[in-house]
């Protein structure tokens, strides 16, 4: 998935330059109204040019991000491209990212002349989003069909950690996307590039630069004197430059974990600061270092290293009488799961101290599962937090310990030679994870920072359905039993919780006539899938011919893969195994006219199978259908096969049994 990584070699010096200059627009620029790259586009990014460089600012480095973007609005549906949002980070002590030199203008061609309309500075709207971010928004004036808009701005950041990432791809196709990053020798960054679109050029050039710092001179007592000292330092600066040309617009598809895994993008992670005359400050280079930092962090693991006496009574009470370590672990898990409310399922940081979370019985997913880990430890068990990234958050990088790639904490507990993964933030069983957690790479924060994989491919979800039809008093009476998959059971449980069993069966009433004895077993246990049971009547209406689908409403009626082609891999939630059986007694007075044919179809040799088996013995018809796929992820090349496989299933499962009244 990850195409390029850190060490960029010098790839040559022949650099193609983009010659656009702010405000230099000629009538010729308006001639083109359609672009081969995407003839259906409503707006085209003509150029998107950015740079990030370090600068001396008083006594520290600051990051300077510059951007210049020019967009052609082709028609009204492209008007949204004329609105831009900037996200600015706030740091402590009143310091925050600052925007300056914001220029924006719209150009229209009127009577052969370029008419410029500049945006006035009052049109920028500032919004405080939360404690950490400010959003600035602006929209350009005089936007009409065919207009060219452009804007440029600079963002000064007091922090050297957040070197801005660059998306070469976005909602609109882009003719030229370029990012330059200058890194002085005092900083080490890891570069991570992803996506499928190749770079036009990728270069590195080392230059010499001087950074001039100014320090406030302090008196010998430490007070300010109003005088400053200057200090200049020369350093090698590596100038990296990436150019991508003719990048297509991003396309959203079904069965994708997160589009963020597929966008063409480069991002950076600070790994070390190496200021002259100072020891090298490793920021985040190895997994053990990441673990160490996290476990010392006030807003993460610091409390796990403490005695946490405040939870002693609770742990003793919850585990009283438990005869085994597993029973202790289970009791603590159920206790946290049942008593704590999760307020946010995407947060790695703990916003509150462990004690506050413990007492308030609510918190984000990391806070709740940290309470779980702490309680397990308090009970003498060997428990660790596990960090992972949920499906919608994109993959965590298995090579580089990048903290911002993680957004979730679960708990790991080892008992004997068994390892259990627990998540108390959802109503789940012991050792069960939520579907969103099956997203590949995760790390246990034990001494070895053990890597674990939660792959959808390795998770098998089974579903068993059985219908038995018997003739009673000249009527066909059915008994339905279904054990849905664990994930389906999870959804069903919340549906029943919200609307009640009655409403759930009411919706079934419209499928089968006269439902009786409805029941859902294992609704409360959460450890296993539920079991849905009911009885129903099947009306033959004394017709001469009866046509019935042996799968009733359980047939796969629609192919989930509608689209003809596919750009990105298909990422389903799990491997699947769905078995359906029917045992049916022929209704009195009828005989079989025709039965569907049995069949067996394999998917990619051994990666899946579809069985459809039907046979008659005396007055009993026995039927079985099974869909089995051994993996959840399919590369785009396998898309057509997958689509055909489901086409075949839809076709086969639509077939009918034909019964004829005996003469």
């Amino acid at each position, binding site marked *: 998935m990850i195409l390029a990584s850190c060490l960029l070699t010098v790839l040559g010096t022949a650099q193609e330059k983009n010659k656009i200059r702010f405000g230099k627009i000629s009538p010729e620029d308006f001639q083109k109204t359609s672009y081969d790259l995407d003839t259906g586009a409503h707006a085209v990014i003509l150029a998107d040019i950015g740079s990030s460089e370090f600068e001396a600012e008083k006594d520290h480095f600051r990051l300077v991000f510059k951007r210049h973007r020019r967009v052609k609005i082709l028609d*009204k549906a492209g008007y949204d491209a004329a609105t831009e949002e900037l996200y600015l980070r706030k740091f402590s002590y009143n310091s925050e990212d600052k925007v300056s030199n914001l220029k924006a203008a719209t150009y229209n061609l009127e009577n052969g002349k370029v008419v410029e309309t500049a945006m006035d500075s009052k049109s920028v709207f500032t919004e405080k989003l939360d404690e950490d971010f400010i959003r600035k*928004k602006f929209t350009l004036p005089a936007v009409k069909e065919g207009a060219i808009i452009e804007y440029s701005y600079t963002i000064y950041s007091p922090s050297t950690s957040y070197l801005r990432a660059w998306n070469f791809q976005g909602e609109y196709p882009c003719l030229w996307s370029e990012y330059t990053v200058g890194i002085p020798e005092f900083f080490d960054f890891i570069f991570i590039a992803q996506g499928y679109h190749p770079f036009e050029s990728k270069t590195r050039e080392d230059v010499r630069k001087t950074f001039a710092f100014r320090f406030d001179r302090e008196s010998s007592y430490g007070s300010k004197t109003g005088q400053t000292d200057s200090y200049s330092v020369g350093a090698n600066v590596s100038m990296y430059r990436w150019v991508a040309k003719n990048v297509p617009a991003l396309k959203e598809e079904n069965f994708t974990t997160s589009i963020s895994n597929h966008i063409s993008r480069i991002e950076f992670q600070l790994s070390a600061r190496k200021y002259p005359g100072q020891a090298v400050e490793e920021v985040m280079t190895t997994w053990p270092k990441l673990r160490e930092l996290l476990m010392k962090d006030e807003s993460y693991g610091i409390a796990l290293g403490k005695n946490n006496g405040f939870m002693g009574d609770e742990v003793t009470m919850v585990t009283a009488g438990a005869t085994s370590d597993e029973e202790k672990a289970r009791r603590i898990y159920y206790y946290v799961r049942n008593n704590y409310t999760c307020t946010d399922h995407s947060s790695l940081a703990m916003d509150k101290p462990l004690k506050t979370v413990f007492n308030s019985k609510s918190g984000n997913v990391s806070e709740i599962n940290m309470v779980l880990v702490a309680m397990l430890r308090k009970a003498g068990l060997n428990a660790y937090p596990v960090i992972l990234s949920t499906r919608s958050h994109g993959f965590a990088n298995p090579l580089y310990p990048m903290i911002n790639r993680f957004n979730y904490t679960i708990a790991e507990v080892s008992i004997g030679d068994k390892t259990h993964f627990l998540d108390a933030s959802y109503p789940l069983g012991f050792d069960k994870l939520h579907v969103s957690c099956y997203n590949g790479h995760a790390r246990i924060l034990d001494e070895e920072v053990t890597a674990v994989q939660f792959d959808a491919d390795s998770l098998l979800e089974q579903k068993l359905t059985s219908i038995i039809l018997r003739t009673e008093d000249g009527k066909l009476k059915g008994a339905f039993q279904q054990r849905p998959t664990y994930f389906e059971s999870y959804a069903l449980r919340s549906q029943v919780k919200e609307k009640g069993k009655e409403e759930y069966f009411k919706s079934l009433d419209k499928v089968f006539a006269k439902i009786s004895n409805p029941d859902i077993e294992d609704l409360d246990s959460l450890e296993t899938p539920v079991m849905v049971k009911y009885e129903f009547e099947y009306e033959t209406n004394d017709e001469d011919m009866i046509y019935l689908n042996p799968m009733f409403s359980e047939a796969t009626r629609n192919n989930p893969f509608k689209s003809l082609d596919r750009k990105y891999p298909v990422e389903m939630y799990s491997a699947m195994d769905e078995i359906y059986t029917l045992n049916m007694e022929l209704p009195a007075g009828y005989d079989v006219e025709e039965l569907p044919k049995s069949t067996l179809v394999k998917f990619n040799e051994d990666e899946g199978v579809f069985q459809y088996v039907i046979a008659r013995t005396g007055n009993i018809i026995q039927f079985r259908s099974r869909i089995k796929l051994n993996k959840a992820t399919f590369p785009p090349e396998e898309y057509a096969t997958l689509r055909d496989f489901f086409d075949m299933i839809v076709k086969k499962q*639509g077939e009918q049994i034909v019964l004829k009244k005996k003469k």
Partner: protein
Amino acid sequence: MYRLLNVLCLLMLSGSAFAGDPVYPALMIPAELKEKAHSVKRWEEISFRLVSTHETRLTEHYVITVLDPNGDDDAALTAGYSKLTEIRSIRGVLYDAAGKMVKKLKQSDISDESFSSGGTFATDDRVKRHNFNYNVYPYTVEYEIETRYNNTFLFPYWLPRSASSMAVEQSRMVVTVPKDYQLRYQAYNFAGNPQVSEEKDMRTYTWEAKNMKVAPAQVFAPALWRRTTFIRFSPSEVEMDNYKGKLNTWEDFGRFFYALNEGRDQLPETVKQTVHQLTDNLSSPAEKISALYRYLQQTTRYISIQLGIGGWQTFDAATVAAKGYGDCKALSNYMQALLKEAGIRSHYTLVHAGPGENDFDETFSSNQFNHVILCVPLGKDTTWLECTSQYIQPGYLSGFTSNRPVLLVTEQGGKLVRTPVYKAEQNLQLRRIDAQLHPDGNLQATISTRSTCEQQDDLQERFHRQSKEKITEWIRTSLSLPSYDVAHYDYKVEEGAMPAIREQLSLTARNYASTSGKRMFLEPNVLAKSRSRITTETDRRSVIHLPFAFKDEDTVNIALPAGYVPESIPKGTTLRTRFGTYTSSITVKDNTVTYIRITQHNGGDYLPDSFAELEKFYDDIYKADRCRVVLVKRE
């Protein structure tokens, strides 16, 4: 400001927040109130006080017991504010099942976020939220929110049952105004009159509701205020910023809005010249309206900006001319100025917009509006203009604003009129399908569809706003067919007084007919299968509100594969109900199945007791739409 907040915090720490108040053990809730409820409002008092001609105070104090996790949201605090309103304090306490205090709200736990609804570019609306996030049920929360309004335009409402699964033990609304101030209100589903008491020069009105059971959600329900106890309040005299006025009648209401916007129609000289260039050579007013409306659509776009009084008052026309954008108020006002320059009179018109949201109380003049359109009276013909759309035809109002009362804002005051109704025959979808069925069950079909008026609103929106790639993807994936490949798709927007869209589609529906041995099972209704059925409501109490009237006509010809003959042909279906009609017929001739389906939904309001009939109408259509022809291969 900072100091003031500190003082408030200190005060709150020093005094017990709700000392001496009664406690609310969950045990005390009457059993019949708990029936189907996820939460119960135990006690509530909303006090609204007119402090001066330009200031009011609102105190909302309530106690809610949450019975289970689905009631959690009912107990969460959401308090909106803006430049026109200021939240002065929020207090809160959490109690356990026994009514014992668990904890008090900490000010630092209140979040403060921008409240921008979808599509809003800029707003000063913000919201404070708080939640105790407790999960030992039942539990009880108590909140008190004090809000100050710096105007007398925004009045509160009283809605005791503020969530659909909430029961109410007791709720009171207390409004205090000076004796010489006429309090205007309209009560719905409330029997009797308020208690009135007087003290010094103030008069207090009190309404009270007790023991209200839950009112479960209903399909085809009228607006909330028609279904539950609700009181609307509206000022008789108003002051906002420097604007003052009376609001006793719809005339007053219109006059106030006229004053708010007066003098904001000055156009720059260049735009005036453009208006004359565009219209001076046109003879009829209709042509002039059309030309200027097209000019508006080409040179402006919709950007929603709601800041302070700007939530109610329009940007001036010169600003729109300079920036080329504005919200509904600004664009309508700008269009009005353009028309004025061309010598055509028009009215800025307030409307409550939303597809199907045409419930409106004409008998009580009050701010029931959320949108602005423009009305151009021309003798007997009136032209209506939706100024925020860059593409719809001049004169057409979509289902967003059609068929409802609106208020014309004129120099002489407000005037209530109705927007046009589009009838079932106008909201028409005509579809013809010619298809060949193949022996493998694949159906190759060419489909032409013409949709008019409100039946084309969504298509129109899609075709103008989405990228071609998204439209292609949509047609490739959205049809209710098991699996299909689109060979060709195009569409055409027809020009004309009534908007119409023609779509041409050819596709192959794979495995459309299921085959078993020598038989094929063919559902002749290819694309018009009704997808909705209604869940039984045994105790329907509210009126059945069907806002949409429409008609669909489908003709399907399917040529059968050689060698197949029908074994069973379903009978046609005819349904005639007060809600509409449905007929379908299936014939087989010359090896071709012909299916004709005509359905009409009348729309309108119906009494609750006809619900079972409506449910049956939907069920019967659902069933009839899935009838199938059985074909058998001749040996």
